């Protein structure tokens, strides 16, 4: 079943001159775009990376690189979806870099989960966090962000079939996690 896109105000609210000014590097225009889009982009990055710091770094990079990118931007009227795709790609690149340079961090959520009160059910956030990054990425992009498997496949450089399989596995793993908690 195709998911409806998350509702966003039409991009015409961002006047063309704001985009043009941002493309020229205007701080005010960049700030206007930040006010309009940063919340959604931060959410995409956070859902993929599960770290506020990493998500903020991604949004930082997106907005720092935005003026130059806007000079190539031609998809008039769909700035929001375009920005979400760009942000998702930057976040996925960061995810790949992290896997190439693994660091050992104190997984606070895991510590909390193991120490939680006996009757406190595993939250869906913890179940999502427990997925491998590959599976989580597809689940987030498909079920929350509403991308198609074709778009996800392009972002992750995998086949459409692989994207479908990963979503299937992610849902199975989520269901198993959540049922195991019952």
């Amino acid at each position, binding site marked *: 079943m195709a998911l409806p896109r998350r509702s966003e105000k039409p991009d015409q609210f961002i006047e063309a001159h704001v985009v043009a000014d941002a493309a020229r590097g205007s701080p005010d225009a960049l700030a206007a775009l930040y006010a309009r889009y940063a919340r959604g982009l931060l959410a995409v990055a956070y859902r993929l990376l599960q770290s506020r710091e990493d998500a*903020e770094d991604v949004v930082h990079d997106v907005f720092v690189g935005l003026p130059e990118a806007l000079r190539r931007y031609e998809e008039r009227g769909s700035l929001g979806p375009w920005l979400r795709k760009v942000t998702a790609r930057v976040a996925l690149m960061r995810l790949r870099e992290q896997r190439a340079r693994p660091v050992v961090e104190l997984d606070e959520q895991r510590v909390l*989960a193991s120490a939680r009160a006996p009757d406190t059910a595993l939250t869906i956030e913890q179940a999502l966090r427990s997925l491998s990054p590959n599976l989580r990425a597809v689940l987030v992009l498909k079920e929350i962000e509403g991308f198609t498997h074709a778009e996800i496949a392009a972002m992750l450089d995998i086949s459409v079939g692989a994207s479908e399989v990963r979503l299937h596995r992610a849902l199975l793993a989520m269901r198993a996690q959540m049922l195991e908690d*019952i």
Partner: protein
Amino acid sequence: MRRGLFRRRRGLSEFADAIRPELEAVPTPEPTDALLERILASRAASVRVILPEPLTPRPRLPRRLIAAIAIAAGALLMLVPSTRRAPSTGEDVFTSSGFLAREAFAQPPDRNGGRRFAPVTLARPKALHPVALELSRRLHNATGQLVDESVDSLVVAPATVEGLPAWRITSRSQDVVGDQHRVQDETLYVARADLRFLARAVHVAPYSRFDRINVQQRFPGDSVTGRMTTDGPSIGAGRPIARRLPRELGPYLTDAFAPLALMAVPVDATWTGNAALLGWAVVSRDVFVPIEMRVAGEERLTVPAGTFDCWRLSIRFAGGEISYWMRKSDGLGVRVLDQRNAATTGTRETVLRRVTP
């Protein structure tokens, strides 16, 4: 086979639909002014980032090619010995609350060792009779303040299960877990002849993210079988229950049966016995918990239902010890006091409020 595959996919799709609102509601950070300042500072410092282009989706592989690959992969799988991943043991979860002690299942069960006493013998099954009980459950916090009070009920009535004379024991208990006010209903059928379990149903509403969870159990031979399902949202066919209940670790008690079980046991000042509390048996961590009982004293006890001469029992779980008072006259449970977490979460007490023959 194709129909089965389709059903599984549909079930997963329903699951995805069910969790999507929760997934979307998972909190995400809010953008801050500090981040905007950092961005503008980076721009001012001539930091530049080359952003990737959103990629154009690749065309799908032709279905025939996918089918050919699938056939080849299937043939390969037939040649490679299969491996089976060990199922999750669910060691960090438990599910059941209990008349005797709701935290019992949070403790690691010591299933093999430590059984100092002989199994409890339900030697007087005919002692059980129709009765209706009201029990008052009170929770005091660590400072002694009453923070929750509820009235539970328990009814024993005659029934027949597949032609076998039985007792139907129904209990309703209410509890506050976190910020949820929960109602747990249990119906247990036991054979009148020997009080062995025949069937059991437990419903808890709400439970975690579900409006209701349902546990249906049967007791063929030395096992418990059945199924766990949920409502609102439904998880479809749910999870099967199939666990062995070793006879040597019995007899088994449930929340509903616990206040009544010792009516069938001759108890004196030196009495001891081992039994086990049966859980929902959905996950391995929650099948049963052995308990050890011994008479620790005798007291004349006054509760809302009256004043009774009682045996005071010490009941030991893997995780601690609670006190239990039973009437000397008929073995009926009169009071349960759980002070294991008195200094932290508080004291739980259940007392007999009314008995209606």
